[in-house]
């Protein structure tokens, strides 16, 4: 059953158009010119209940604007959106109890007080009894490996501890639809892994639907089977992560440790040279030429070791946008 439906969703922001310099400043002061900037254009998709979907795109692609429309923070300029049977922008209390939005770079916890104080407020706002709130806090704190940190002022917590406390606050009312905007932004690798594990566990336990944006492809590959790819406000891919990498990046990465050092020219005709550092070379080789290229490499160079991998997904996406493949 679809829990999120977006049809022809669009958002246009009206922004001031000011020319640089004193003349531009004066003209802007007396006759302000505005222009419409389309941030999201004609985006349509549905997400089934319980799915974990990754929302990918470069900075300014329209991911966060779309999330803001799905949560009801901003009103769409065009199209229709429905989440759990509600029109988000009406922001009915029943709808707000169903969803949560976690923004990695923003916080809802009160900075100078321990997270427990903010959690008390959240419990009262959502009408969760004190006993039930304690039970849920204990359960989520255990899943997130939080203990004494909940009694320390938020400003004294590390970024990772703060993010986990933010997640706890965002999930105290047991939302069934989670919108996560860069939930691991700025966290170290260990903290990223723990947050990912927690989200996967929460999804398994509660069957919650998750729409996740992240710059860390590790988040996407660890949690999502399906991805939406947005570029310049338009959705251009909706499908499995595996298919995306196969369709849009028909390469494999070949890493070799060689018995001697060679100049870059030596690897002409062996695919695209990605990096060359001493004895170690990394090449991107088209999937249909993989076997032949490896055979020639083995015949041409003294290969000590050889690995074949899928290139990192962030590289695929980055390459895609750099090369204008999505234009």
């Amino acid at each position, binding site marked *: 059953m679809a829990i999120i439906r977006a049809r022809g969703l669009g958002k246009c922001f009206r922004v001031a158009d000011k020319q640089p310099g004193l003349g531009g400043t004066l003209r802007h002061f007396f006759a302000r010119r505005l222009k419409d900037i389309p941030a999201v254009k004609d985006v349509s998709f549905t997400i089934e209940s319980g799915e974990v979907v990754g929302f990918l795109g470069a900075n300014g692609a329209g991911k966060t604007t779309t999330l803001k429309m799905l949560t009801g923070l*901003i009103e769409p300029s065009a199209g229709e959106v429905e989440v759990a049977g509600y029109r988000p922008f009406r922001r009915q209390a029943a709808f707000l109890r169903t969803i949560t939005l976690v923004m990695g770079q923003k916080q809802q916890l009160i900075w100078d007080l321990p997270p427990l104080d903010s959690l008390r407020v959240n419990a009262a706002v959502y009408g969760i009894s004190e006993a039930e709130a304690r039970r849920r806090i204990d359960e989520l704190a255990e899943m997130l490996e939080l203990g004494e940190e909940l009694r320390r002022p938020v400003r004294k917590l590390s970024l990772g501890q703060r993010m986990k406390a933010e997640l706890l606050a965002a999930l105290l009312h047991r939302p069934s639809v989670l919108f996560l905007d860069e939930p691991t932004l700025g966290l170290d690798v260990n903290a990223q892994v723990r947050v990912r594990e927690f989200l996967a566990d929460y999804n398994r336990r509660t069957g919650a639907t998750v729409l996740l944006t992240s710059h860390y492809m590790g988040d996407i590959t660890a949690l999502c089977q399906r991805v939406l790819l947005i570029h310049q406000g338009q959705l251009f891919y909706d499908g499995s992560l595996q298919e995306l990498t196969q369709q849009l990046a028909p390469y494999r990465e070949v890493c070799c440790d060689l018995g001697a050092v060679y100049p870059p020219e030596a690897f002409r005709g062996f695919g695209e040279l990605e990096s060359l550092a001493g004895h170690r070379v990394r090449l991107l080789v088209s999937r249909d030429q993989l076997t032949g290229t490896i055979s020639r490499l083995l015949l041409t160079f003294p290969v000590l070791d050889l690995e074949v991998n899928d290139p990192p997904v962030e590289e695929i996406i980055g390459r895609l946008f750099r090369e204008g493949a999505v234009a």
Partner: protein
Amino acid sequence: MNRTLRLARVLLSVQYAYMLEYRAEIALWALSGLLPLIMLALWSGAAAAADLSLSPAELSRYFLAAFVVRQFTVVWVIHVFEEDALQGRLSPYLLQPLHPFWRYLAAHIAEQATRVPFVLAIVLAVWLLGAGASGWPPPSTWLLGLLVIHLAFLLRFLLQSVITMACFWSERAAALDRLLLIPYLFLSGLVAPLEAFPPGLRRLAAATPFPSMVDFPARLLSGGEVDLLGGLATLAAWMALLLPLYLLLWRAGLRRYAAMGA
């Protein structure tokens, strides 16, 4: 009902804990609201006081009461809302089933509670300095005065909330509050009791909500002659006018909200 009471209790206690973190700053704010006491010193000159229909003792009581009223009707919602809207902190509030302004209201009340010891100390000091606090009105008048102070606070909170809605249209709407400060200072009775004003200016002041914010509660608290029912009706009428206007602007403003910084 129980849920509402619990929510109010939790919001107030958490906001009070938050305000206590800033107690030194709040003490300075309390000190910065000494204008009525400065005006008392100015008006205490015999020549100036002679123009008033108040005795020196009544004048002292009025300005001391105005000081108390001013302390418990300070409103700063426009500044915190503007910052929250610009920094993206408003967005998480909007995603919870509680109108964000209840949080701001709770923060103001908690801040008032934090001020109490400082205000009491200043009032006591002025009293001991013999600034004419003789013959204070009975406790019943004090209780009624406290109720009216809080109604005056609600009116001021509502008026500033209406202006705060400009934050949805302008990124620097808090400047409008400074524009309102001048009519507030002169027409509310903070710099002089309205009785000292020429009749034309008094009529102009009466046509604004400002006298309800200081003059009416201060005169009541100082035991002066007041039209209690008329004063309460004026407070209620202004609130009845401002509340729907606020709700209308809130709905229109949300349509323009771009959730910046979030």
